[in-house]
């Protein structure tokens, strides 16, 4: 048995982690702003992701093009997000977190069952677009999926765009002001309500980007939203609520720790422990690694890595 893990495996896991992290960031950035600015716990954020994926799968089939499908799905989900904000979420801004958790938990039930009624219980198929459906030789001996590389590219580009939007534009300034102190920003004339509707629409659109692009890798099915929602919450708690920078760092941390843990811990345990214990313990520790990370961060820095609130 050779000592140490082969570098190609390490690199591949790193890229997988980067890809998961960047997709998580698309969800977490919206979630953190919604929570940061309006102090609303929106569990239905994952439902928008699911809706985006279903829209993308359906529209891709109708239009015959993956790209047109995803683009239209982003628009449709952004509209759905704005409608959701105006119709339901506005009612719970002034209420406590518990009410918000419950109202949006009820929304999850409605969305999941609604999707099941429209699309049926089977998972939808969203094929990888033809032009990216092959491995690219990165290093000798390491072929990496072109589609996953594309996801990394899109994620990085959108992250950069979001940073420009938030740090270089007037809208971004309002968003930052709202996240750090809503009452003060409002007193100084920032139209928080309208800014928030825009933020909600944009974050819904980003959910759809993640949902549509992850569609070919993960299954498009009811319940997909909740799985990733919990991860997104872990990300923003680690990063600090309201901070887009924190969301990026948190998302990359979670993505890489989760992927690396799943790939590297079981073989590591196999060396240290008996095979029977290792096969039990490896996957368990791997899947709770990110929650350990979150608990540790909350323990040491209760406000997250990049605190925003004043």
């Amino acid at each position, binding site marked *: 048995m050779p000592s140490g893990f082969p570098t190609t495996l390490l690199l591949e896991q790193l890229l997988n982690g980067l890809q998961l992290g960047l997709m998580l960031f698309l969800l977490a950035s919206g979630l953190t702003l919604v929570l940061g600015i309006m102090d609303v716990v929106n569990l239905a954020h994952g439902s928008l992701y699911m809706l985006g994926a279903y829209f993308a799968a359906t529209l891709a089939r109708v239009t015959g093009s993956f790209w047109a499908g995803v683009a239209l799905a982003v628009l449709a989900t952004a509209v759905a997000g704005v409608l959701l904000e105006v119709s339901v979420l506005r009612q719970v801004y002034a209420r406590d977190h518990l009410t918000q958790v*419950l109202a949006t938990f009820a929304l999850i039930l409605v969305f999941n*069952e609604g999707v099941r009624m429209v699309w049926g219980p089977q998972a939808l198929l969203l094929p990888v677009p033809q032009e990216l459906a092959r491995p690219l030789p990165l290093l000798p001996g390491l072929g990496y999926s072109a589609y996953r590389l594309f996801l990394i590219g899109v994620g990085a580009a959108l992250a950069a765009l979001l940073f420009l939007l938030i740090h270089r534009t007037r809208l971004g300034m309002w968003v930052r002001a709202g996240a750090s102190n809503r009452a003060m920003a409002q007193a100084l004339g920032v139209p928080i309500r309208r800014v928030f509707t825009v933020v909600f629409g944009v974050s819904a659109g980003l959910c759809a980007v993640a949902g549509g692009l992850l569609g070919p890798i993960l299954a498009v099915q009811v319940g997909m939203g*909740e799985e990733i929602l919990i991860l997104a919450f872990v990300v923003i*708690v680690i990063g600090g609520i309201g901070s887009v920078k924190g969301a990026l760092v948190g998302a990359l941390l979670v993505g890489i720790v989760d992927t690396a843990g799943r790939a590297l811990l079981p073989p590591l345990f196999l060396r240290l422990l008996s095979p029977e214990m290792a*096969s039990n313990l490896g996957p368990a520790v791997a899947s709770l690694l990110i929650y350990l990370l979150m608990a540790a961060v909350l323990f040491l820095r209760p406000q997250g890595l990049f605190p925003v609130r004043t």
Partner: protein
Amino acid sequence: MRTRPFLVPEARRIPVTMPQGVGVGVRLAAAGILLVGFPVLAEAFGGRFYLNLVTRAMILGLACSGLNLVLGYGGLVSFGHATYFGLGAYTVAVLAREGVRAAWVVWPAGILVAAFAALLIGAMCLRTRGLHFIMITLAFAQMVYYGMVSLKQYGGQDGLRAPRTDFGFPLGDVALYYLTLLLLAACLGILWRVVHARFGRALQAIRDNEARAVAVGFSPYPFQLVAFVLSGALTGLGGILMAHHAQYVSPAMLSWQQSGAFLLMVILGGVGRFWGGVVGAAAMVALEEVFHAATIHWQLPLGLVLLVVVLLAPRGLAGLVEGRPR
């Protein structure tokens, strides 16, 4: 405690009263008689179906009353109470798998496991506040969930059969009904004493204004931790009962959806109202059954009704039972 809280004599003088408001005592007695006589009634009409339904409602009511202690009286939004529920239930199944089925061993063991988990998790989570408390309780619940899923010898993802524990006589559905009723009544009695004792009043004072409670000499941490452990133990007892009821345990009992459902039931019934957990659980079971009978897409109307209740009736349904607003 370092400083002697000067509120103690005053708090001691507040008498422990029965539920107030016209007719509440009558309603309580009527509910008691109805529940005691219900199995006979059920046998005459729908058979075992309704008996099992009411048993389920009472079990969930017990678990939710436990949650309501920290959620309503402590003001702590625990998004991880499925952990204690699931651990109680899993204790029954795991001990049965290991060959231990004596009720006098299994029941205390289940409650102890749940209480000990609540002690460990509560001790860490209670250092945080607000939104972070919600998230960190969820994080620990997820850890327990994934831990249990990975234990392949105890069923993993598929769950585990949980044969009923050995009381020395066969525990049928009717006997389980009365056992549940008895335990629910006993636990509600304990909770009534707890929330009206000095301890409960201090807990509520801390919830209402922590700074003021600290200023008069109540240190929040021990009160909240004791409440958290008691709450976990009661919810764990609910889990033990649920394992007996379903004769099967699965990781879904530990899932965050289950935690969310508990929160939903308590708010449906009324947060921080004594009957909130029981009323909410009963209402939820009834709603589920009604919609389930009407359509396979029962979650849609259920979600809409819950949304309307949350938006329009923030105090929940328990006001109808308690008789007057708090």
